[in-house]
């Protein structure tokens, strides 16, 4: 089985801080990581390869620094890595991003494409299903378990209050839930090879068969017109020196004041 995993390099949003004066994001010094849902997708792909054979190739669209997550993926066990990068792709919203990725993926062989459910910087969950649409293949989102039955995949698809067992024909695209597995660590030999012996293939605008009107800022129907720090409500009373008994009394009092019981 030939599997392509789409991975994104993201800032670790847990460590993003706001500049209290300017109200802007402080991104300096915030480490970049492989998006967690994508990493789970990669782990799922590597597990499928171990069970059924084949290859696992990884694709990332982003600036040249995204090379790092592709090397990490190879150090975990991915076979080939492709970095889709060009200034012409800049300013893309999810539709233009998925169109660009589709143009890149069309040049590769695949039975299965796995993306993460969503990236922690944008949280949109849109690029996976959009990519499947451009490729005219079925997609199953929120996959939490994947098995193979001949040319058909059997996927456990999560919803809020239930799951569906879904049979889907390959080629197809799945979006992986971060909770579905615990991704393996890179191996020391894998890290050595990923950095010293292996190549990341660069894919640029010139390599893709896609119209200018469909990529980058031009190909993006949506546009950010304003961004602003989130305003939080003001803090209330803080009691820092109460004994447990007093603390319980304090809460009781407040609950009564508000007629909670």
């Amino acid at each position, binding site marked *: 089985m030939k599997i392509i995993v789409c991975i994104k390099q993201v800032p670790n949003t847990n460590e993003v801080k706001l500049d209290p004066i300017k109200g802007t994001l402080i991104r300096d010094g915030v480490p970049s990581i492989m998006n967690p849902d994508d990493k789970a997708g990669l782990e799922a792909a590597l597990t499928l390869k171990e069970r059924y054979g084949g290859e696992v190739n990884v694709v990332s669209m982003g600036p040249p620094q995204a090379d790092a997550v592709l090397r990490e993926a190879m150090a975990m066990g991915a076979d080939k890595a492709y970095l889709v990068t060009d200034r012409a792709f800049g300013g893309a919203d999810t539709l233009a991003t998925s169109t660009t990725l589709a143009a890149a993926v069309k040049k590769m062989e695949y039975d299965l494409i796995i993306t993460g459910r969503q990236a922690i910087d944008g949280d949109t969950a849109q690029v996976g299903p959009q990519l499947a649409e451009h490729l005219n293949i079925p997609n199953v989102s929120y996959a939490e378990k994947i098995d193979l039955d001949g040319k058909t995949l059997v996927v456990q698809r999560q919803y809020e209050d239930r799951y569906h067992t879904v049979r889907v024909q390959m080629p197809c695209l799945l979006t992986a839930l971060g909770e579905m597995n615990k991704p393996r660590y890179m191996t020391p030999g894998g890290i050595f090879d990923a950095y010293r012996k292996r190549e990341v293939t660069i894919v640029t605008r010139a390599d893709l068969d896609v119209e200018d009107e469909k990529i980058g800022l031009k190909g993006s129907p949506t546009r950010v017109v304003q961004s602003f720090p989130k305003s939080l409500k003001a*803090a209330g009373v803080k009691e820092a020196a109460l004994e447990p008994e007093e603390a319980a009394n304090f809460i009781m009092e407040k609950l009564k004041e508000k007629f909670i019981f």
Partner: protein
Amino acid sequence: MNIQDYKGVFVFVQQVDSHISGVSYELLGKARELADTLNTEVGAILLGSNVEKLADNLAEYGADTVIVVDSEELKEYRTEPYAHSITSIVEKYKPEIILYGATAIGRDLAPRVSARLKAGLTADCTKLDIDEQTKGLRMTRPAFGGNIMATIISPEHRPQMATVRPGVMQRIAKRAGAKAKIEKPQIELTPNNKYVEVTQVVKKVVNKIDIMDAKILVSGGRGVGSKENFAILKGLADVLGAEVSCSRACVDAGWIEKDQQVGQTGKTVRPHVYFAVGISGAIQHLAGMEESDIIIAINKDPSAPIFDVADYGIVGDMNKIVPILTEKIKAEKAAKLGV
């Protein structure tokens, strides 16, 4: 594309087992407001098998027209027949706006539709309004894990589409007896390579109330320390008639189910009282609960950011404070009953 040809605010009505999801009523409420501002109509898109009977409910909560596609192929949610139905409806009725719930269904369906129509889509919006000059839709959403808010427009494409987080918009007061115009467009649903087969539907056994509907939530974070310690929170929840919820850390640790998670990647809640116990208050968590009426925080760490949003903050050990509080409430309740 002549954007003047597109009129009306449409809502994708999510129904599961012929039960309309709460978020759909919330979206109808918002659509009503947007449509009134634009001086246009609210259309509800109702897809499923044997669902026409639900149309009156939609009228009572704001729909002027209900567009029904009734087919066995639409019985269980599947991406392709749903996406095909919606794109066919867009081609026929040309709405200027379509709203979807940001649910496990909406977040799969809306992107597939947007790519087919080459229309813009904004995910997980928390605010929607109409630009006074352009009459375009302004879609505001959190980004970077809730650290900033971004307002997004789709000026040159129609329909303008957004998914909206459940629990954020308000439904309108029920218009008892209201009737909607019913439309039943003919849409061919012919299986192709993109039709998947649903072989099994397994419902999670839930004998608890959805945390989004709870009036009081006792919510635990990493500071609770273990799965077993959640029993302490459950004790407090039980005496208050409350539900237990949690932060992401507890789900990741396997202490508690994902459907009880509050926050950016969990649910948005606005209960009357929110107890944040051992929750540090990462911005991702605050994004899901800061609209609560009263926030009571208990945390050992005096510098925890949860104290910045708490109405009442207690610096202290939950293991000591919560059991005492539970006992006191229990005793007082018993006294009231004269036991």
